[in-house]
């Protein structure tokens, strides 16, 4: 059965509506959202209310968490001071616009959702702020899935959709302890695991302007990345009219690949 996984909606209502329409056209009713309903975009309340109305299972993203708990991520979240200032402005703007009910909704979202062999998180099983980039160390990537006791890890946060298969792995070790004279050798095979990044509905950063999400078939294990066109002009105008930094609109309009993310993908915020 097909299920859709969406992430990083970022208060971009036209993009969310277009993606939900695309999902509906495929006859898919099982949808999971990996968080970041708000932040950067101009329609935070509208997007939350749509997710609530559609009863979409959602886990908490880093923006959702920060809007509720206050900005307590360390400055690794941004690649530059100017990006950090823009991010903080958007944070403040979003906090002011959100209704109490919607803040409560974000506050009560779970960190992760588990369905059989699949685990759904925003960033990584360690943190909503950790980036699992497609080129991160393969063993570290496998460790994230394996330690989470999942076979397929669905994540977002990077805004770059991808499917990563980690297979045919093995590790050999030599061990020695103080109680033994012998050196033991062990070799173990590593399990095949997958990481699926759903990309971003509301703020794509894969080099294109289309919203992205993934469709997963839980019978065949097949995963497809979907790209969906939406009315970008509408969102851009709303960003400008809301008084948010114009670069947010420019980024959407141009499919800016630049990702506002930490240099060190393995870094986990000490909170």
């Amino acid at each position, binding site marked *: 059965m097909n299920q859709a996984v969406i992430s990083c909606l970022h208060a971009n209502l036209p993009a969310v509506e277009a993606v939900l329409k695309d999902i509906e056209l495929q006859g898919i009713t099982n949808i999971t959202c990996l968080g970041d309903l708000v932040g950067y975009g101009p329609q935070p309340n509208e997007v939350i209310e749509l997710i609530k109305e559609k009863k979409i299972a959602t886990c908490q993203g880093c923006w959702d968490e920060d809007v509720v708990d206050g900005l307590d991520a360390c400055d690794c979240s941004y690649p530059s001071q100017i990006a950090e200032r823009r991010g903080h402005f958007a944070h403040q703007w979003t906090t002011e616009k959100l209704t109490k009910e919607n803040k409560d909704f974000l506050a009560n979202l779970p960190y992760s959702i588990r369905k059989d062999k699949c685990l759904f998180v925003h960033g990584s099983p360690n943190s909503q702020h950790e980036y699992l980039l*497609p080129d991160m160390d393969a*063993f570290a990537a496998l460790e994230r899935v394996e330690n989470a006791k999942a076979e397929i890890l669905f994540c977002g946060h990077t805004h770059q959709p991808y499917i990563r298969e980690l*297979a045919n792995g093995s590790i*050999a*070790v030599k061990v020695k*302890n103080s109680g033994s004279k012998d050196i033991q050798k062990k070799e173990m095979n590593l399990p095949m695991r997958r990481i699926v990044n759903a990309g971003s509905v509301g703020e794509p950063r894969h080099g294109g302007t289309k919203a992205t999400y993934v469709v997963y078939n839980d019978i065949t294990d097949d995963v497809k990345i979907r790209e969906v066109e939406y009315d970008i002009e509408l969102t851009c105008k709303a960003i400008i009219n809301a008084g948010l930094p114009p670069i947010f609109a420019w980024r959407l309009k141009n499919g800016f690949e630049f990702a506002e993310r930490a240099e060190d993908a393995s870094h986990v915020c000490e909170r």
Partner: protein
Amino acid sequence: MIERWALISGLKGDLDTYELIQKDLKKTPGNITLFVLGDMIGPEKNCNKLLHRLINPKSNDLQPWCIYGWWEEQILLESGYRGNQRAEALRINKGEEVVKSLINAVDKSFLDWIAALQFGFVELDCGLIHGSSKDVGDDLTLDTPPLTLLDRLTRLQVNRLFTARSTQQFHLELTEGILNSEVHDLTGNHKKEQKVPQKAVIGVGAGKNYTLYDVGTDNTQFVRAGYQSEKKKNGFGLHF
């Protein structure tokens, strides 16, 4: 001259053991640097004399380079050095009495010194940490999955990780391995084969059990204070 590191941990206020180790190290050949990987304090005995000695070494002592360990973290938590957090994990696992004993075992005048200690050292291509790069309480042992060990090494970008939390002495070397990674994205398929780099995790022991590391040869030796080097006596020095 041979450069050696002596890695000790888990003294928990035991000045006698510390003096025994200092005595041992004076007889050990080479240019020795002494690292104390945390747990200088504990709830069992008064720790003030040991802390005073670590802060004010005797003229013939090897200078100790200290980092904080799990017990130091607990006292800092309980003493309000970590914001509103308290040592709840300790309280739940060991009870209120142990929390009180820990507080009573360390004079408040030492807390600022403890709070100023570093989480770990990175020397050459080695990480020296009480637990791991993930957490001061991370308990790495021989039974920890190699993937987890690799992750802890990768986070710190080191080839050797010296850890003390488990109190065990061990040397686990990741010798070889492979993992195929295939990424499918909107630009196509990208295949990559990654090999396990030669890295090792070394448990340094605790109390009288400590570790000598020859920087030049990468050899690890497990030692018990007050005895001749086990390497010489029993021939089980490690040569990885």
